[in-house]
């Protein structure tokens, strides 16, 4: 956390003092301590447990994805402000001397770099869609993932991270299949979080689309009830924080990646994600910084 910006919240300080998170000098990119990771792993295991009989295929993708994916999805129209494109140096040794000169002079050096073929993954569900290209079986597809996500949103709030993990599920099929599945999970997610003593509620939501044009996108998304979130109070004096999101994409990904139903129509997709760090931070905020003192029912549920 950089000292020059707004003063850190007391929640942030408490998490640091108890060794739960470790500042690294950049907002939204703290390290995680052992107890933090234990709670995160146990929550993730609870998600395994409630979804065990669903038959989801498990996979993990790296924190980078092909730049072509975000180009195909018009990501730079909708979210240019959140993007993290990986750049590197492609020049010769002579040209490389520019870096130390610029850095010593305190000058920017990004223009000496060029784009690579990868970008930091901006949404937990993105990496898997290219693997669905083709005809979807009658029963559809169901995958679950554990992926790192990057969003360029530096903030002193511990719940707004630049880099975080999401336990994600993606369903592919007919509109009826994917909407029914999303609604089932919305209830499941609420029940799970409430069973951990969190004051969780659900609400219609929209994505943080860029600019004025983005306001139309957001209004349209909300009006069609395409996105729901489960929210939990975490930051004092602020509105509740979204800890899960449930999204119906209609045929957006089906059309982009040539994922088709047996009828030849583009397939519909939906996804849902548990923001794992946010849920862990909500647990510490709600029950205190020491899991040994958490309510017995919560400790038992998490196997602590």
């Amino acid at each position, binding site marked *: 956390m950089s000292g020059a910006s707004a003063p850190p919240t007391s929640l942030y300080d408490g998490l640091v003092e108890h060794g739960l998170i470790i500042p690294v000098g950049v907002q939204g990119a703290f390290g995680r301590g052992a107890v933090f990771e234990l709670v995160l792993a146990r929550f993730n295991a609870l998600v395994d447990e409630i979804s065990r009989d669903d038959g989801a295929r498990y996979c993990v993708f790296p924190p980078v994805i092909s730049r072509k994916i975000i180009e195909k999805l*018009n990501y730079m129209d909708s979210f240019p402000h959140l993007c993290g494109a990986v750049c590197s140096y492609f020049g010769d040794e002579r040209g490389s001397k520019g870096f130390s000169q610029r850095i010593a002079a305190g000058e920017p050096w990004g223009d000496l770099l060029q784009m690579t073929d990868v970008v930091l993954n901006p949404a937990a569900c993105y990496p898997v869609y290219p693997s669905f290209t083709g005809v979807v079986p009658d029963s559809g597809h169901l995958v679950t993932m554990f992926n790192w996500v990057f969003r360029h949103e530096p903030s002193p709030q511990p719940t707004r991270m630049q880099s975080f993990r999401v336990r994600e599920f993606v369903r592919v099929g007919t509109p009826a299949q994917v909407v029914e599945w999303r609604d089932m999970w919305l209830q499941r997610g609420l029940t799970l979080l409430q069973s951990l003593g969190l004051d969780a509620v659900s609400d219609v939501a929209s994505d943080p689309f860029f600019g*004025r*044009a983005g*306001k*139309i*996108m957001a*209004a349209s998304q909300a*009006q069609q009830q395409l996105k729901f979130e489960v929210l939990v109070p975490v930051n004092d004096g602020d509105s509740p924080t979204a800890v899960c999101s449930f999204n119906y994409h209609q045929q957006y990904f089906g059309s982009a990646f040539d994922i088709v139903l047996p009828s030849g129509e583009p397939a519909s997709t939906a996804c849902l994600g548990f923001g794992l760090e946010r849920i862990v931070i909500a647990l510490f905020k709600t029950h205190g910084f020491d899991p040994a003192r958490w309510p017995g029912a919560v400790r038992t549920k998490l196997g602590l």
Partner: protein
Amino acid sequence: MSSKEQQDESIRQILAEHGRLAAPASSIARDAELSAHGLTSHATVNVMLALEEHFGIEFPDQMLTRGVFTSIATIQAAVEKLVDAG
């Protein structure tokens, strides 16, 4: 041609160029729902930017809703309001 008719024609031209509609914009009824003719929210954004450029107007935040872009009639009502205000 009245200014209203000119507006109607310009809006249809912009929809034809930027709306990626399934039907020719010239043949769509004024009150028909544009989303039913394939106007997506991505395309709506391009239509809005083209309307702003063509009519020299700027849609204020409170008008950036789906309601304004429901049909040719609702778009024209909004454009008229903004042109008059300008």
